[in-house]
């Protein structure tokens, strides 16, 4: 029932991308996102798409796995496309009663859609090739410069690690409690929304009680092992940047120059938009 939900989507194979430093990967993904939103025509996207394709090929993650990551967003994609198609003013494409679809709407919808697809696929590649532990380690370092501004970088990373660690535990617990209540005749499947929501109390109350108890125990166990925050804390696995990491960053910077050039050369895909 609940079992089988995929938590995190790390795809464990050995590849250049997998062995890169998580900090470099986070940096590359961030720069990539920025320039993706700077791109204002399809030529820019062609360049970025090419970059993404090469990254996927290097990562050795099979295509169907990468494509699958877009599926949860399919609804938003179609919704965006429809909104643009029907709500953008311009030359009429089709008219059905009071609803009109426009050419500029179609172009703009496709444009935004392409941007989203590239965005999802590329950022998924980050989580597909980086284990959650590496990811939080990397994030902690990437956020370190912001600690002067009061961002609790270590605490954030620790919270993420703990949350990730306890997702499967809580799922298992939820399944156990659900079964125990079903054995007492509880029904979680039928009834309308309101009824179903109310029927969740027998599941949620025990789940919260045990989650708080677990949190208490975890805090105690961490204190017993002298945890006192990030200050002076060393790491078991030290992160090191290698040649591949520098090359990757260089490439993404190169790509941003190309995109800026294409942006200036061809101009926006639709007049009057950025």
């Amino acid at each position, binding site marked *: 029932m609940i079992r089988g939900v995929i938590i995190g989507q790390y795809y464990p194979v050995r590849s250049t991308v997998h062995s890169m430093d998580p900090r470099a990967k986070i940096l590359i993904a961030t720069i990539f996102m920025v320039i993706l939103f700077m791109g204002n025509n399809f030529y820019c996207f062609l360049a970025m798409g090419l970059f993404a394709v090469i990254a996927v090929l290097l990562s050795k993650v099979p295509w169907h796995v990468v494509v699958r990551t877009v599926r949860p967003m399919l609804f938003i994609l179609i919704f965006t496309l429809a909104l643009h198609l029907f709500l953008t003013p311009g030359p009429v494409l089709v008219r059905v009663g009071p609803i009109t679809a426009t050419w500029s709407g179609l172009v703009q919808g496709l444009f935004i859609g392409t941007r989203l697809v590239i965005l999802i696929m590329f950022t998924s590649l980050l989580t597909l090739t980086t284990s959650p532990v590496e990811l939080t380690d990397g994030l902690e370092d990437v956020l370190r410069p912001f600690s002067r501004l009061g961002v609790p970088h270590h605490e954030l990373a620790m919270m993420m690690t703990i949350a990730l660690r306890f997702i499967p535990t809580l799922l298992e617990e939820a399944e156990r409690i659900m*079964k*125990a209540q079903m*054995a*007492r*005749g509880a029904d979680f499947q039928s009834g309308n929304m309101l009824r179903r929501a109310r029927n969740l109390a027998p599941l949620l109350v025990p789940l919260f*009680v045990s989650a708080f108890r677990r949190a208490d125990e975890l805090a105690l166990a961490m204190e017993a092992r002298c945890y006192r925050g990030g200050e002076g804390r060393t790491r078991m696995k030290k992160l090191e940047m290698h040649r591949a990491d520098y090359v990757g960053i260089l490439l993404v910077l190169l790509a941003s120059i190309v995109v800026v050039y294409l942006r200036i050369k061809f101009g926006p895909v639709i007049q009057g938009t950025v």
Partner: protein
Amino acid sequence: MPIEIEHVTYDYMPGTPSQVRALDDVCMTIRDGEFLGLIGPTGSGKSTLIQHLNGLLVPTSGRVLIDGLDTRAKGTDLRKLRQKVGLVFQYPEEQVFEETVFEDIAFGPKNLGVLGEEIEARVREAIALVGLPESLLQRSPFELSGGQLRRVALAGVLAMRPEVLVLDEPTAGLDPLGKREILGHIRRLHERGLTVVMVSHNMEDVAKLADRLVVLDHGRIVLDGTPREVFSHGELLESIGLDIPDVTKMMKELRKRGWPVRTDVLTLEEAYEEISGYLAGTKVGGPR
């Protein structure tokens, strides 16, 4: 109301790389009024098996018949089955959620559509069966001690008036007094005519209470018989990570040292009789 388990096989996550066979061709019948002890090492499939007894899990292949009704068949009313077969999970106190003990015990009967005064009657009956005072009924369950809370959870299942009571490690995590009390109540429930299936890791407990033992290992039944028969296979039990009761072990040790005593002894009382009987026959205290 017999429960027949016919060639039941159960796989977790079938069709995925992490497929695990939890039960492998299990056949057994739970007869009316018996006290069945289910033992086996961790991961042997005990918990999976008992979840088949009320249709929480249905077999991957094979079938389970409860009072002649197939749990996998479409028309079977699972809620009715769950009323007849009361299942008490491990650490049942963790499923308690209502504001008062009364409300929590009433949860099961309410789900079955029991109304008004009948609910009140059932709650009072159930709390008496587990030996708790009615004064607890208006208290919050979260104020009770661990042992009390477990008995409240047990009462929550008894209030559904099941014919078969299935318990998964009912004494886990309790102190000796709590343990003794809960086992006493289970024994009395059995004497009142309830069929009991009890999963346990404690060989002494099942030796004392059960009139039939089924031993599971790697999802298969390896032994099925009276406690006396089952515990005569000491080596087999040890090889799968189980044990025999301490008294039985002691009698075996005595025999090894030359005392001609019976070794199929299961309780302290039996051992006492056997040893004192032997000592009465000899003049000195022991051989030579």
